[in-house]
């Protein structure tokens, strides 16, 4: 239960981080808050000889408002995200996740970038950021690129990041009027436990109150935060009501590809997905109508 012998490198810049990564590849890993990485190293799930810390790279820190949205630096901690005034005012849905994740000691250290890049199926932010139309800002020595989170995750613990690429920030576009998002999560214990199933929902209402667009993304019940196309089809054009939500929730349930483990069987998780989907859709709708903060 010890971290194996490693060298730690404090990169001062992105360039240096990239250089170190390529120099020690494939035995190097990027270190952010370390709440995933150190546990994996101690348990032997991962090995590494070199840890490249990016904590000193200023560019990765901070939450900044841009003219078209919010740039969340990759090293933003979950606590910083949870408490940020702009998040509280305009991206309150994020708090559905940030307030329930892990425990304060972890949230004070764990980063948004780490949560996204580690691409663990049960991670809480990815589905929510996905329905909020979030995008990954990716940097490498050859330049920057932006990838919508909807296509960022490719498998369990796998993303589109190529060797030498880093996540610098998650970008969230300004949430349009009459749009609401929400995240509903089910866990076996109230404090410090990971999601058994989580569903994020985003609803764009038209002027007539009907659904113009909708997104439902699954967490913990598929290898990646999967967008449920069938749910969108059911919802779009409809007058939102519990019946429609239930139909969309059933579609979410059908789309889930849960595994069986100690936290629950696949069958149970599917049932829970339907319930969480209904709840997330209802909350998202309330937010879209402005009846819920």
């Amino acid at each position, binding site marked *: 239960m010890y971290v194996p012998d490693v060298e*730690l490198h404090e990169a001062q810049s992105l360039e240096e981080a990239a250089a170190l990564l390529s120099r020690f590849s494939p035995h190097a890993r990027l270190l952010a808050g*370390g*709440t995933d990485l150190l546990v994996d190293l101690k348990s032997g799930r991962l090995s590494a000889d070199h840890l490249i810390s990016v904590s000193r790279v200023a560019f990765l820190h901070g939450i900044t408002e841009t003219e078209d949205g919010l740039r969340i630096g990759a090293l933003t901690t979950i606590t910083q995200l949870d408490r940020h005034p702009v998040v509280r005012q305009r991206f309150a849905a994020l708090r559905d996740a940030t307030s329930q994740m892990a*425990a*304060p000691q972890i949230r004070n250290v764990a980063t948004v970038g780490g949560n996204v890049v580690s691409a663990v199926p049960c991670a809480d932010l990815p589905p929510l950021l996905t329905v909020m139309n979030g995008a990954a800002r990716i940097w490498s020595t050859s330049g920057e690129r932006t990838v919508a989170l909807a296509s960022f995750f490719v498998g369990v613990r796998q993303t589109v990041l190529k060797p030498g690429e880093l996540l610098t920030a998650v970008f969230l576009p300004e949430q349009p009027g009459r749009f609401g998002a929400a995240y509903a999560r089910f866990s076996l*214990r109230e404090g410090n436990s*990971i999601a058994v199933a989580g569903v994020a929902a985003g609803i764009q209402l038209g002027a007539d109150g009907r659904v113009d667009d909708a997104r439902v993304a699954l967490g913990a019940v598929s290898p990646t935060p999967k967008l449920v196309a069938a749910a969108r089809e059911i919802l779009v054009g409809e007058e939102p009501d519990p019946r429609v939500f239930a139909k969309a929730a059933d579609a979410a349930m059908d789309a889930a590809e849960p595994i069986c483990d*100690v936290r629950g069987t696949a069958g*149970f998780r599917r049932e829970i997905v339907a319930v969480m989907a209904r709840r997330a859709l209802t909350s998202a709708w309330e937010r879209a109508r402005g009846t819920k903060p």
Partner: protein
Amino acid sequence: MIVSRNLLINGQTYPVAVDPSDTLLDVVRDRIGLTGTKKGCNVGDCGACTVIVDGQAMNACLLLAVQMEGKAITTIEGLAKDGALTPVQKAFVHEGGTQCGFCTPGMLMSATALLEENRDPTIHEIKNALSGNLCRCTGYAGILRAVSRCENYRGDGTCTKKADSDHNDSGKGKVGLTNAGPWTSVGVSIPRVDAVDKVTGRIQYTADISLSNMVYGKILGSPIAHGRVKRMDTSKAEALKGVLWVLTSRDVTDTQYGVSPARYDEHIFARDKVRHVGDEVAAVAAIDEKTAEKAVSLIEVEYEELPVLLDPFEAVADGAPLIHERYKRNINTHVDQVFGDVEGGFARAHYVREETFTGNSIYQCPLEPHATLATWDSDGTLVLYTSTQVPHYVQYMMAHILHMPLGKIRVIRPAVGGGFGGKAETTPLDICAAIFSRKLGRPVKMIYSREEMFHHGRGRHKQHMKFKLGVDREGKITAFKSEIYLDGGAYSSFGVATAYYAGSVIPTLYDIPAYKYDGYRVMTNKPACGAMRGHGVPQPRFAFECLLNMIADDLGIDPVEIRLRNAIHPDTKTINEMDVGSCEFRATLEAAAAKSNWPQKYGKLPKGKGIGIASGGFVSGAGYCIYRGQVQLSHEKPREPFVKKSIFPHANAIVKISEDGMAAILLIGAAEIGQGSDTVLTQMCAESLGIPVSRMRIRSEDSDISPLDLGSYSSRVTLMAGHAVSRAGVAVVDKMKPYAADLLGCAETQVVAGNARMYVQGDESKSIPWEEVARKYFNANGPLVGTGCYKPPDGLGGDYKGATVGTSPAYSFGTAICEVSVDLETGKVKLDRFTDYHDCGTPINPMAVHGQVEGAVAMGASEALLEDVVFDEKGRIVNPNLHGYLIMTIKDAPEIFSGLVDSYEPRGPFGAKEIGEGSTLPVLGAVAHAIAHATGVWIKDLPITPEKILQALRQKEQVTEPVPAR
């Protein structure tokens, strides 16, 4: 590559050399020596390592020390300034916020971080802030009280927060007391005697102790559940730099050890074969723990795999392979008991119901991992520091294993961070550390990782129970039959006793005129199960209480009423010949029902809301010692026939008065493991001496200093050790009396001691200071010392096989009422409230008693809803950690009301009985009943997960939904 760093800790700069892989936790503890910060899991699950970094709570086990330069780090040692406790530390002391204390430093750091930002947090905010800190002892109730009332302890008089006093009821007067009170030290809620050391991080647990020249050891456990060791190659491990010795079965004797003398079946290292994942095969000593851990992984072992048995029913089937040759059909213990006319009882019954219940595999999960530090004195005495609840049995077993007299073994029990039965045996750590240390001539420390704790096991037996209960028209029990298969794991451990306990403590609550019990403890390829809080009884009690509630519903009798109709009376000899003395069981039923508004709620709540009831009780100390005969190396003494009396006293105390008479030192080997025994024993001794607690000190940790006490199991300490310490106190006072009489000019028989004075009975104006008399005694005779001891009464129990198990000088009783809300869409249960009333005799320290109840409620409820050690098909534990095996957090724990009914036990010291284990017993059944009431479905196998609830609801829909006509 070692680098140097300046770490700013508690305002002081520490230059340290660190390896980049070192966590802040290891550096703070091992390099800097601030051991107040604890390691409970090492992976972020428990919060015991919480420190404050630049104002924020963080887990030191997940921070790299190299990265901490320039940050302001505060550890528990940095809270109190110039010895003055902070308000929240004071609040923890006075509100029962600490028990074993292992979670306390982390808890306090989280609380401090919160309070620095938010001086007046809501309950919700407190729960959020502490949700990453696990506690296994307090049920979080005392902690929540402490943080929420912290303002009261600021001492600047700016605010006095109103205490919500409605969380407990300590009884009003004493019933039927002839010799009760007025007491000054007994019956009083004083803070724990070790509380200040616990809230400051000063107290030392075994892992916190370092001796010079110390090295470390690690054990290699089997990766497979059943197999033969074909080949072992230790050369790579031996070649690793820093490795001192690799120990295998070649190097040790083949002495077998265990708990029950008739079933010693464990070897130091697997001889012929391994029987569970984690079964010990070798061990390494090295200069540090990390090297030892690495070396262990370099040992190559080749196994021949054997079929794995994980289910007791498969294990007893014809043709199943034997896990031990000596246990035919893999049955380790078979109990076959019949009392009264069982068939007649069922024939006479108006109503009979039979049900099957299944328990779960529960692991105690004390927050402190097991640890041992062994060293040998130059005269050949083994000095063993160990995290144990049974120092004497460790001494006994080490003597047996090492073939040396008990007198040459000194067991030191530093502070213990919880046991709950998981530390009631000699561990492989004790054995290996002693062997390593003898060979190397250096102190050797060994600590289990959280995962190794699960593999060492000794948790609660999973029981498969078929129960049949018959009642007459009034609901009075006519006969009861139980058949239980206990999943024992790979070794006997306490299992023989467990199998008997599973039957013997059932008739101590209700009048059962006819009773048959068939018990089978079966070997399986899992870590051995042992004795856990309530030893063997909680699962059968759960099943019994559920069945009684089902029958009550079937017959339309209120569940409280059916209990009242069957409750036993004081001074009853049960059908299985258990001698019940004091019994206020009915009072617990009535008080709990009244306090919870039961009549207004049962059967009357909306769907999804439920209320449930169950009762329970337990022994106040086992009537007999675990081994037979006198205290002597077991190889040397003849195998002795069983006699129905104690050969030697089970609890022994010495009180030594300082030469100036101003201090009394109480010496007794009773094991303080967090339950508060040091405190209540000090109180009882002070009472009998007639001096205040503030003049007393207790030394209970060292067998060289304190005489034998059998330890903390079977809820025995308050009653048994309590007698020993109060008798020792009386012995001192008796010695002082002639001198007092002389000074007072009265007869010896007229002298009484109290309030630090000695006076003439009936005339308190004629008095002299207590210490003056003590000095006079010393002047004349030298040391003023009193001794006291306790033997359980002779002749306890019947004459049938197994009649000793369940015997006790006294029995406790309790009733718990649980209220829940169930989310009928997800099956998730929220515990709203618990109302518990207990008959523990005289509460020596009501706050400590309530603390035990609160802890038991949370632990029991956690068992009922969340916990289960899960095995895969190859016998590997799927969740040997605190993120897979979930125990309740502060956010899950219910609000708890703990009440005590007035009761006095003539066989107990000051009328006291037990509380620690008995308080667990009603909990499981009450939770199950409340859920059944809320949902309309009974879940009969534990834990009651959301998944099982949903499944049962679906099944019920299918059954009750009208089939549409074609």
